[in-house]
């Protein structure tokens, strides 16, 4: 029987003077710790600033989930200050939004679930490819063999579907087979494969954190045609909520406190003694003691929490006597190209099949011109009728309306589809991308907000543009039309890492290789903050795997 999170009044009756583990944040960084430790009999509390959504609370409501900020804080109350080219831009008044899925399970609820393993070279970027001027590239404190077993764990527990194909940049696997067969494929995938083959490019099946058969607590994918940006209504998507927190609740050892906005970690004698937070349901300030504190609030907010947690021993922020907290923030380099497919490229009936995934990735350019390159992920647009329609209102710099708009929309909905090619390449760590505090601006709880410097190293664009050249060759061979998109120096706000990098030297890193603070004995960080370099892939899979790795360490010491 699942123990649901306590209601606000039950929370007042919770009398646990000291729990074993307090986790701040319930997404991909926190979920594995909660899962493993609660199953090991430890008492675990997760503090999550957002609401608890049951599976049945989710819907495919395009307005709610993609057009309004219903699953992120109101930016009039909680915001960031963006620092770009010397100017400060509070996100109260810009299009920037660096919040991502602030509900139980975090942004993993809304991911697309492209689950690629980092390549062994990603752990030794400095040794393999050398220094780049102005970039703070270092090798990781662990190598691929340290993380590989935990990729296996994630594939099994979170659930990853796919098929192994031998290719130059595929990382080695202990088990060749994925625990779940690939998702059903859209007919266009075969066209993509054959066209790629004719120009000497190899396409691979994208591993997805999507179940393709039922499990006791989750149902397989039903191909709703609304996936990324939406919570999953079958439980197939491997969110931290579905895959880890719900099973962990069954142990009776896990308590999730939603709507708990953490203010500060309080240090005494070199350890975190307790955490203070606002219980938003009760509008009360509360505290919680734990033996171990695990911070997993996403890179920007994790760094901000440490910087706000000053004490006499840590006047510059918790675990920040090295001055490294917030430094070397990472996003993802690259950009997106989109093009139109019609019956000129393939059979119309097959093209207009709905819901099925393309699931193709090109990794041939993972290294290119003796430099680290990246990947190209291919996917068809989701249903999202409002987005589809709004992108069709312009013709020759004039607005379409009336019958002309209707005719255009009818064709758009019935005769064509947009194919997206998403380029991911490394966002190099450097001194111009970091998190600090904006001491002039405070959130609705009176705490300084994060100031986020978002400069991109020029090398990011250079590699992105190099990959885009290859992408354009492929798009032309495929015959897609109306190609739009660009490689951009702007950071994708949903792909955050770094800021509290791990390493062996306490002077140049915040965490040791177990992701424990060098300076504070019972403080761990398990979201993407630990990554000194990010690889050229979406981060969630590696965050999950690393968190499972840290969980093993915590089980051994608690």
């Amino acid at each position, binding site marked *: 029987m699942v123990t649901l999170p306590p209601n606000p009044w039950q929370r007042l009756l919770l009398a646990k003077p000291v729990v074993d583990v307090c986790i701040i944040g319930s997404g991909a960084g926190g979920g594995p710790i909660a899962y493993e430790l609660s199953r090991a009999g430890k008492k675990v509390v997760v503090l999550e600033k957002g*609401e608890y*959504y049951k599976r049945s*609370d*989710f*819907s*495919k*409501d*395009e*307005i*709610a*989930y993609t*057009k*309004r*900020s*219903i*699953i992120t804080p*109101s930016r*009039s109350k909680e915001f960031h200050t963006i620092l770009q080219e010397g100017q400060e831009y509070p996100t109260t008044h810009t299009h920037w939004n660096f919040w991502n899925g602030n509900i139980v399970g975090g942004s993993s609820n809304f991911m697309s679930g492209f689950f690629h393993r980092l390549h062994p070279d990603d752990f030794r970027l400095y040794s393999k490819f050398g220094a780049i001027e102005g970039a703070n590239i270092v090798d990781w404190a662990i190598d691929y063999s340290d993380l590989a077993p935990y990729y296996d764990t994630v594939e099994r527990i979170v659930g990853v579907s796919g098929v192994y194909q031998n290719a130059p940049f595929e990382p080695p696997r202990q088990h060749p087979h994925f625990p779940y067969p690939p998702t059903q494929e859209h007919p266009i995938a075969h066209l993509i494969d054959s066209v790629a083959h004719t120009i000497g490019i190899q396409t691979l099946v994208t591993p997805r954190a999507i179940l393709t058969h039922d499990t006791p607590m989750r149902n397989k994918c*039903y191909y*709703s*045609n*609304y996936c990324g940006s939406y919570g999953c*209504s079958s439980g197939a998507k491997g969110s931290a909520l579905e895959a880890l927190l719900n099973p962990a609740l069954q142990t009776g050892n896990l308590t999730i406190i939603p709507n708990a906005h953490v203010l500060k970690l309080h240090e005494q004698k070199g350890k975190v003694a307790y955490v203070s937070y606002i219980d938003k349901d009760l509008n009360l300030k509360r505290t919680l003691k734990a033996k171990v504190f695990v911070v997993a609030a996403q890179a920007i907010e994790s760094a901000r929490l440490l910087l706000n947690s000053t004490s006499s021993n840590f006047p510059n922020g918790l675990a920040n006597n090295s001055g490294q907290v917030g430094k070397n923030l990472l996003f993802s380099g690259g950009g997106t190209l989109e093009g139109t497919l019609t019956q000129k490229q393939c059979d119309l009936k097959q093209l207009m099949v*709905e819901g099925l995934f393309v699931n193709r990735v090109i990794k041939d350019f993972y290294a290119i011109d003796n430099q680290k390159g990246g990947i190209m992920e291919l996917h068809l647009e989701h*249903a999202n*009728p*409002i987005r589809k*329609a*709004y992108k069709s*209102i312009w013709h020759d710099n*004039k*607005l379409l*309306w*009336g*019958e002309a*708009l*209707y005719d255009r*929309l*009818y064709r*758009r*909905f*019935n005769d064509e589809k947009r194919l997206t090619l998403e380029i991911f390449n490394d966002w190099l760590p450097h001194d111009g991308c970091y998190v600090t505090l904006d001491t002039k601006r405070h959130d609705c709880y009176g705490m300084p907000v994060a100031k986020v410097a978002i400069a991109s190293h020029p090398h990011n664009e250079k590699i992105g543009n190099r990959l885009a050249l290859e992408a354009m060759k492929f798009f032309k061979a495929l015959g897609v039309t109306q190609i739009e998109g660009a490689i951009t120096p702007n950071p994708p706000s949903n792909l955050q890492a770094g800021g509290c990098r791990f390493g062996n030297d306490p002077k140049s890193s915040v965490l040791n290789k177990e992701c424990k603070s060098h300076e504070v004995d019972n403080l761990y960080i398990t979201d993407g903050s630990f990554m000194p370099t990010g690889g050229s892939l979406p981060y969630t899979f590696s965050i999950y795997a690393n968190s499972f790795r840290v969980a093993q360490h915590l089980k051994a010491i608690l």
Partner: protein
Amino acid sequence: MKRRVFLLATLVLLGVKSFGSGLPNHRVLVATLEHLFPTTSRFAGAKALGFWGYLQFVMRHPSFSSEDVHFVFEGAKRLADEYPLFLIYAPPQKEMVLRRFEETLEGQEWLSRLLYYGLEAMLGDPIYGGNTKMQGWRNFGHTPPKPMAKTPFGKACG
């Protein structure tokens, strides 16, 4: 609460007593939407799909930008000021006026914003008051999503 106060202040500034059909220029707004999204022999438009009801509903929600509320009504006011007879014009005259209005930067921005909210009303979940009987989706053969919304604006604000 603060936003509500701001919204009311905005509407008071616009000289209105309540947020509804008593708004000045709301008829200009509605007429413009009905021109941009006419009901034709093949397609249900603004009137049939309840666009005005949709706008009234979503504009009241905290997630709707107060700047947008102001912008939408300010644009209607400007159109009414520049073309006082807009409401009584026949469709060809309205078309001419709106195309002329489009030639200014502000006019084009206002019309594109109305087109955007019109498309939300036409193609969003019917729970918000538009897309009456899912006719907006049927206009273009769009398959209704599963599951559809049980409450507007997700769980949190439903």
